[in-house]
């Protein structure tokens, strides 16, 4: 997505810092594995009507972890977070209203 104007060379060192270091990345990874395991385990428990909300809830938390730590959203300005929130909001909107039509038909 970048636009190049100058010659292709290594950038001069920029003082690039981030509050997300190797340790934070590792913790996020472990958390994701734990959540994956939990979700896998719960899929063998009979949860009835709660199965889908629980599985999707765990998935949502995992996506949040990926966005905040792996994708570095924790460090980004609000406008970048807004893009992510907007995407989530409109996907949910589309899903909810479309499903509501089928669910509420007589």
């Amino acid at each position, binding site marked *: *997505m*970048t636009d*190049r*104007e*100058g*010659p*292709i*060379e*290594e*950038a001069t*060192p*920029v003082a*690039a*810092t*981030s509050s997300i*270091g*190797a340790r934070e*990345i*590792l913790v*996020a*990874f472990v958390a*994701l*594995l734990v959540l*994956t395991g939990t*979700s*896998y385990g719960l*899929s063998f428990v009979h949860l*009835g*009507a*709660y*199965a*889908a909300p629980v*599985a*999707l809830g*765990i*998935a949502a938390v*995992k*996506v949040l972890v*990926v*966005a905040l730590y*792996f*994708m*570095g959203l924790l460090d*980004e*300005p609000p*406008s*970048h977070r807004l*893009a*992510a929130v907007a*995407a*989530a909001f*409109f*996907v949910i909107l*589309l*899903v*909810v209203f*479309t*499903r509501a*039509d*089928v669910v509420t038909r007589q």
Partner: protein
Amino acid sequence: MSEPRAHAAHFESLERQGEASRFGMWVFLASEALLFGGLFALYAAYRARWPGAFADGVAENDVVLGTTNTVILIASSFVVALAVHERRGQRARRAALLLCLAVLGGATFLGIKFHEYGHHFELGIFPGGHGAHFPGAQMGAAIFFTLYFGMTGLHAIHVLMGMALLVWAAASLFRARLGLHSLEVVALYWHLVDAIWIVLWPLFYLLRGAA
């Protein structure tokens, strides 16, 4: 796509340009999410209409293979996040090696995915309700498997594109020609691929009960 020594003429600073690139990618990823959004909406609506057929369809998939793939993608995403961290610390070579590892993860993921597709074909399950499996199946089974092939297939295309970007980034890093900001943008794309699979996994492997 490589980072310039100096920032482009129309930007104030390199920092600003990097931020703009990342933001551009975020906005584009929002667009990508909506691309999948239409399919998620169809899944949600059709699952409400044919709960039994969808539950049976999920049971047809191999949960162990699906979960293995989930772990592989999460691990590859982790590795890419580390690569960005290494590049930030000016350790380009290590970053490149980590990207290679991630590419390997992507390839394994696709290998398992195609093995699953092959197994489905053997059972007579093809997209569009074609194949020997369907005459005996419930109404709605065709829809489930069409969505399955469509959504995982679209995701697989994204995995391929992500892998291509990763290979390019790794090659550029080995030749010390890739700036941090370009790597960040590539990494964002790969994480999206991971995030989408995280949602697909329960939909096609875990929700075996007709609620």
